[in-house]
């Protein structure tokens, strides 16, 4: 039964209260223009605590969401996804993703914007550094977009259900995470696609049979992909290897007491960086490196400030540094993060 009661707002009592309401509201307005109460029921105060370490460089320090950094082949710039409409009650606004280029020497930033105003995300540099592959979103479906650094022109490759492009080492093909077979009335299956970036022709499909949506690493010889089940913006569980020749996938790192995420192979392919969430921490907050040679796992950094997490790892081309995002990465809740670069200690680099 509906019990709505319409109340009259013009009574002397309500009028008095409204005067006081105003006074109260004015008093509680903050110096930075943010309303704490009164006129605003919900006010996000979103800033990720700074991590401090001698080996860390903080690249961003604002209330926005940063994801998917990608190091340019010359090591001078990082392309990263940013969302400045990231504090929505129901998550970052899907139409507001953009790609920002950060010059690591000057700190200057350049925002890439698509000519049609589409949201763009998940940048990937071509091996020669002349193009960026990004995912575009036109409010309905995705596309694979190629951006020429020199001409600043965009090329669209039809790929409606694609995410996270990665170039092959020869630049002749692009791999994307995708919902294979998706379309009107069909949800499809998580997997990988290999595309010809010029024609858009699908060269190969690799179904996964697992929940998967996230960054992955393509081996330089294109024989395998290392990926995590789940997603940085959901819950990862384990790291897998997908054999691109046979199509088989194998559990790679799967400690039953730990969730692993964000696998990133070093440029020489002999170190694997990833993130961990152990049962007690409640957040993916440990960045580690392991080596095929030693089988040892070394912790690079482990801030313990839940709910803040480490995700989206990207190796520098020389294998000496790793870029990552640190913050809150919800997909249906407010999300915000900062971008950092951490140096890999020399003794670990020597393993390569």
């Amino acid at each position, binding site marked *: *039964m*509906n*019990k709505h009661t319409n109340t009259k707002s*013009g009574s002397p009592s309500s009028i*008095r*209260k*409204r005067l006081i*309401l*105003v*006074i*109260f*509201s*004015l*008093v*509680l*307005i*903050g110096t930075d223009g943010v*309303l*704490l*109460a*009164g*006129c605003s*029921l919900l006010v996000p*105060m979103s800033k990720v605590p700074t*991590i*401090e370490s001698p080996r860390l460089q903080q690249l961003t320090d604002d209330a926005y969401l940063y994801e998917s950094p990608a190091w340019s082949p010359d090591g001078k710039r990082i392309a990263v996804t940013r969302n400045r409409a990231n*504090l*929505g*009650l129901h*998550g970052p*606004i899907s*139409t507001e993703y953009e790609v920002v280029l950060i010059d690591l020497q000057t700190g200057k930033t350049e925002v890439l914007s698509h000519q049609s105003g589409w949201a763009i995300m998940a940048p990937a540099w071509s091996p020669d550094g002349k193009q960026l592959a990004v995912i575009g*979103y036109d409010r309905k*479906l995705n596309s694979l977009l190629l951006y020429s650094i020199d001409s600043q022109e965009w090329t669209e490759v039809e790929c*409606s259900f694609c995410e996270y492009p990665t170039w092959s080492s020869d630049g002749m093909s692009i791999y994307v995470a995708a*919902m294979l077979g998706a379309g*009107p009335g*069909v949800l499809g299956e*998580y997997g990988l696609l290999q595309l010809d970036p010029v024609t858009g022709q699908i060269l190969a499909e690799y*179904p996964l*049979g*697992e929940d998967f949506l996230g960054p992955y690493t393509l081996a330089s010889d294109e024989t395998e992909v290392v990926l995590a089940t789940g997603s940085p*913006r*959901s819950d990862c569980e384990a790291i897998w*290897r997908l054999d691109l020749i046979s199509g088989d*996938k*194998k*559990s790679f790192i799967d400690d039953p007491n730990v969730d692993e995420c964000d696998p990133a192979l070093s440029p020489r392919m002999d170190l694997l960086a990833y993130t961990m969430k152990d049962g007690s*921490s*409640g957040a993916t907050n440990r960045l580690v490196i*392991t080596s095929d040679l030693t*089988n040892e796992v070394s*912790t690079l950094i482990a*801030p*313990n400030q*839940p*709910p803040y997490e480490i995700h989206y790892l990207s190796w520098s081309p020389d294998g000496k540094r790793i870029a990552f995002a640190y913050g809150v990465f919800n*997909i*249906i809740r*407010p999300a915000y993060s900062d971008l950092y670069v951490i140096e890999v200690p020399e003794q670990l680099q020597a393993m390569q």
Partner: protein
Amino acid sequence: MTMRRLSRNEFEGNRVKIAKIRVIPSLLLEASNELQRIGSEVEAVGDQVQTAASRAPSYEGQFGPKVHSLGSEAMVRSRKLAQDLSALANVLRNKGEDFESADLAGAEGLAGILAKLEAWLSSDRLLVLSGFSKSLLTRILNLGTLLSTGGGEVPDEEPDWEPPKWASSAICAYELWSWFDENIGQSIRDFTGKTTIRVKQGLDGIAWAFYFSMTQNPQSQMAMWINDYLLTVQEPGLPPDGPLTVAYEAMMVVGPTGDPASLVGTELVELMWDRRMNVSFIMPSGSGASPWEGRILLAERLVDPSELDLPENAALVGHELTHDLQRELNDPRFFPPGSLRFEEPNRGIVGDSTNYMEVMAYIVGETIEYDLLLQKASSVGLSAADSLRLNNIENSLATLTDPNSWNAAQSIAAYHQNCDVYLDNFVLENSLPDHRIPPGGWQHWLRETGFSDASIKHIESIAARGTPKPLPALDPNTGKIIPATPTPTITSTPISPTSTPSPTPSSTPSSTPSPSSTPTPDPSPTSTETPTTEP
């Protein structure tokens, strides 16, 4: 944009106009009594401000102390104001008894009220904190007494014009103006028969204030901004130019069979159908608020109607409208109406809400988004991100519909650690035996707000597909998540081998998708077919 301040002569001229208004003694006596009551309440508010401010969390170690200090000042000032109001009341009473001198005295008394309130509100610190200029307050207050300030320059046209910082607080200014308009101005109008500026509804008052006291040019950018962003009203039904019409239509969209794609969304629109809703687009992007009944605040960017058919934005509107329905339940303990009240000594803040109200609002909003994503699946298909979003909503609804309502309410704070309002609610509710959660469960209270059994069953069916999210321990004093394994600092740990979850190749696992990999709404899902929504 340039604005012209009132000259001293103009201000004095306004006072002269006040003096020409006749005031009957009985009204003065009524005003006197009213002022006495207001004085005591203002004093009480000052105490509450001080109490509330003392609880303000320190943000980055900077903001908390300022609020604490401000709260103490507010208490002192409110007491002084109360004394002043009391004195004014005595003056009015005395003068009211002296019929012959009532006109001038009454006018002076009214002007004195304005002057004192203005002085209080525009003191240096409050001026800075409120973002209101002294001249603006003067003009607004003058309008409250039916006085035109007589001028203001037409602002220059600027292509990149943006409203000044204080403009989004104009709702508060309206409330101030409204009180004067109805409490004092109306008394004068009743006597004089003058009805020049009699605006009863919503924010129109502040529009008049800006029109007459700042620009006198309805085509000015400021005036247009006020109209477009602050003063929008969703009239009953689906008016073509309604600020929420696109969102309503999105929520009411029908599927291929002609049935509602979102039963919850359709019922919500039906519940709002006859209501008039004031809508202001002033919130940070993506945010929303329902400060008190009949009014919602939405993200500024949503002033573009085309934004409102995105599932996540329609969900936001659904969330805020649910709050509005809650605020009409006439249950101040569990569903506070939002206006300031004195019976709850621990709260007393306008826009009060509970985290259980949020539980219900998120349930409605997320269900609408889920349904609209499925509608998108059937029309164009879903990306992997969309599918992940469906999965996240299933898990979220599984959490929010926890039979243990307190767990659900705590999850609001746990998964919105950036929202001080939710954390503050948690701190209070954690200390109360009933946690400000009404008995009956979310199903009962959604029915009370008007949703059908079919909608509730639909929500339950989505939640059944998800996995409740773990509930971390929250600090009872701050609402912040308590790290399970505290470390002394945030700095990195030395490079040293730790536990060795060695890479251990194993056999290929089953490739059967997990239940959540392909959202499978009822009634008869398959792993690849897009499900249809239930009728």
